[in-house]
């Protein structure tokens, strides 16, 4: 059942086949049920794998639009399947759905590969366990084999740079050469941490814009502070910056900083304050001599205390000023010139304010960015990572906006989604390098796993490595089959050529994939292997399912993509 997209969702109930009692499901029904669900979900996603994906149509995505949504992205397909009518199957499908959606959020790509890899491990694992194997021991050895796979992948990593190479990576995710080319250019310039906004365009074309300096999403507190030349924007040159989160209730609170800038013959002041009352705004607007002193007030950026503290800290480092903090009991009363920050240029419009050429200490700024980068590397929380990445992007002093056009609004929206996924993958590729694409990196792990299986004496251990050696061929088999070729025949041809070779679906021949420039972001392939194998190994340990008679009707969490990359 498909819910309305981007609407408050409630689980759509199926007629239940039991009443009053909880139902407990034992083996072999547990495995069978889960397999049914996993097969259904993977069956829906499998056609999308590879550079020649087939499309999955999902109908009634939106109450207002009855036309089916055509998708070639496994993560979104998985997200839109929220319940299967067969409750045993539903457990398996939802288990996998959760894995895929988390993977999509984390690295932006790889969901279809993860789905087929998960299915391959799970199916072969079920066969082995039903034949008498031990699920818990199998899980242990599957995870041991995963370590070998990750080690092998690490040895294959290469680092790419330059517009063309990055564009090739983007194309493996979005399958849209003009879009990939532009993303390659943008990320070649902005780098891993750069601030990139991807927005729907108004026309058919793709456009990009680079913005100098850094900006925050807080506009001037009053239109009266902006130049009325049609742009509603004020540019300040050689501006002083007052940095604070103080609440300005009375105009008198502003006297000390204003007196200070006038005393020092400073002509422009950007005032960052936590809150400002109407009377204080009116006082600032009553300035009769803007040629002597121009003042623009904006509110402290950030949605919560932590983000505001970060913004104040960043502004202080960038401009060489001091942050006045309400919680520390600071006031403007004894403000000195060295408390002010300075910038070559500052600007504000109705929605944003920005700084170009902050006059803070460059060494301090570089160390500050290094500290935030270290925090970024330390944390695993995706939200914190996003916030820290945004912060670093701002401090690096520039941003890019990509306007994505298309023939219809639907096409534009889908292209925007693809662009965002490609952007996430590019960040990953810049951070952790790339691996041979087209399923070859995983295929190249097979000899190591076979060697481990040969020397293993424990039956569960041997089985685990054999399962993995077989499973790592699943992605390349699917890619070849999706392109309309015989997978076994092509795999034989690839094996004959030697390691590093794969099937170029576009050129329809066996090639050395690295030489042909077919790459996948390493973080995607490694995350796929990790997510698929650990979760399949865990799924194999599920022995009993319990269905509640009255499943709770709880709204699902909002899984719409983040607003900003």
């Amino acid at each position, binding site marked *: 059942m498909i819910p309305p997209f981007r609407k408050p969702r409630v689980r759509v109930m199926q007629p239940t086949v039991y009443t009053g009692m909880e139902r407990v499901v034992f083996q072999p029904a547990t495995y069978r049920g889960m397999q049914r669900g996993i097969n259904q979900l993977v069956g829906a996603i499998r056609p999308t794998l590879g550079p020649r994906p087939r499309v999955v149509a999902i109908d009634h995505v939106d109450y207002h639009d009855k036309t089916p949504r055509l998708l070639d992205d496994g993560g979104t397909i998985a997200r839109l399947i929220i319940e299967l009518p067969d409750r045993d199957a539903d457990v398996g499908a939802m288990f996998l759905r959760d894995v895929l959606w988390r993977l999509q959020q984390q690295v932006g790509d790889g969901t279809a590969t993860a789905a087929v890899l998960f299915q391959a491990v799970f199916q072969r694992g079920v066969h082995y366990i039903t034949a008498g194997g031990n699920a818990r021991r199998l899980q242990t050895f599957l995870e041991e084999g995963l370590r070998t796979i990750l080690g092998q992948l690490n040895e294959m990593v290469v680092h790419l*740079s*330059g*517009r063309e190479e990055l564009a090739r990576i983007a194309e493996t995710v979005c399958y849209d050469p003009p879009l990939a080319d532009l993303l390659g250019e943008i990320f*070649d*310039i*902005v*780098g891993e941490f*750069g601030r990139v906004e991807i927005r729907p365009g108004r026309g058919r074309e793709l456009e990009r814009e*680079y913005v*100098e300096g850094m900006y925050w999403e807080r506009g001037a507190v009053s239109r009266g502070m902006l130049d009325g030349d049609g742009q509603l924007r004020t540019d300040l*040159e*050689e501006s002083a910056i007052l940095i604070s989160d103080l609440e300005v209730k009375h105009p008198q609170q502003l006297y000390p900083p204003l007196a200070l800038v006038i005393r020092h013959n400073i002509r422009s002041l950007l005032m960052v304050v936590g809150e400002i009352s109407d009377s204080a705004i009116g006082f600032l607007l009553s300035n009769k001599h803007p040629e002597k002193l121009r003042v623009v007030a904006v509110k402290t950026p950030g949605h919560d205390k932590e983000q505001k503290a970060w913004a104040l800290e960043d502004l202080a480092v960038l401009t060489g000023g001091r942050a006045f903090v309400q919680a520390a009991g600071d006031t403007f009363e004894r403000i000195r010139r060295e408390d002010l920050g300075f910038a*070559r*240029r500052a600007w504000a419009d109705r929605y944003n304010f920005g700084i*170009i*050429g902050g*006059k803070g200490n*460059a*060494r301090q*700024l*570089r*160390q500050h*960015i*290094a500290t935030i980068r270290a925090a970024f590397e330390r944390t695993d929380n995706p939200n914190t990572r996003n916030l820290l990445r945004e912060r670093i992007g701002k*401090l*690096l*002093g*520039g941003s890019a906006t990509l306007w994505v056009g298309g023939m219809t609004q639907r096409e534009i929206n889908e292209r925007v989604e693809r662009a965002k996924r490609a952007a996430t993958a590019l960040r990953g590729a810049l951070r952790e390098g790339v691996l041979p694409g087209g399923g070859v990196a995983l295929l190249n792990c097979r000899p190591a796993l076979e060697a481990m299986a040969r020397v293993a004496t424990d039956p569960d251990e041997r089985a685990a490595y054999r399962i993995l050696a077989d499973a790592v061929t699943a992605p390349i088999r699917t890619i070849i089959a999706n392109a309309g070729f015989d997978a076994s025949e092509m795999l034989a041809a690839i094996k004959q050529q030697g390691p590093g070779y794969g099937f170029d679906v576009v050129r329809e021949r066996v090639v050395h994939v690295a030489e042909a420039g077919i790459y996948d972001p390493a973080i995607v392939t490694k995350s796929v292997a990790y997510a698929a194998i650990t979760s399949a190994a865990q799924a194999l340990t599920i022995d009993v399912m319990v269905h509640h008679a009255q499943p709770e009707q709880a709204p699902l969490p909002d899984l719409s993509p983040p607003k900003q990359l």
Partner: protein
Amino acid sequence: MSIPDKMTDEMSLTEIVHALAASPNFAHDGLCFAARSSGLYRSEDGGFTWQPAHNPSGDGKPLPTSAVVFSPNFAVDGTVFAGVPGAVLRSEDGGKTWHTAALASPPPFVSVLAISPNYAEDGCVFAGTVEDGVFRSGDRGIHWAAWNFGLLDLNVLSLAVSPDYARDQTLFVGTDSGIFRSTTGGRAWREVDAGPEGTRSTDFAPVLSLAISPQYAADGTLFAGSEALGLYRSNDRGRTWQRLGGDALSGPINGIVLDPQYPARPRILVLLHTALVVSEDNGATWNEWYPDLQDDQTLTCVAAPLGLENGSPLLVSTTGGEVLIVRERFFKG
């Protein structure tokens, strides 16, 4: 050594020659420019006599000039660029007439100019500034835009373009807090990975001068002269650095000149405050040479229009605004 005509009657120690540039065709045309705080000067006789080269309209007062560079294709296009407050001057007739291209307000102070070796094809020119980072023009200096993405220190003191720029799009800037590299034709910048001998990149002192090997594509060699930490060389495109010269090269390194045949002939000339220091073994040993200077006079810039041949002229400028023509036999080989 010979001391040429002074460019002004009254020499003042506040007068500084910020940059010297000699024509790529110097052996035939003897043309060179000196960018001085009192304006841009031009010589057609190898630096013996100098005339003001730029007389702006209005009050006719010359603009302080802080940088000057010749097009590598000067024999054909006659192009010269010079940096003045808030603008870059462009001449397409060897410096007889000038066009002004303004840079974004507030007016930046252009500290250094560099030009793409592939200028005839790509028309790229770069202007480093004191507070506004790097401006880039892709249309032969007509329009300029600041491209500072990733350039965390906007105080640019030196700039060097890869001789293989057409292919690698690489340039380096030396700033107040170290070195940044661009591999995107000056549109984005990255910190160099490490500072001297494994220290952090921010441990660099201000980098006053940079020089890139003519065979950079093959040897990846780059020299950086710092204000207080001496001379450094990187043989891996700026990833790691080794100090050269030890105490022989203490003090600010105001200029570095490599032999055009470097590294086959590994001659290096370094300009210190009061001395020229040369090495003919790629920095293993150094010899100092001190010009006759008046009290408090220091050396500011050097140009080697005919390379580092024994006895070929070196143009060396001083605080006070003089340009010395030095013809010494520095090298034994």
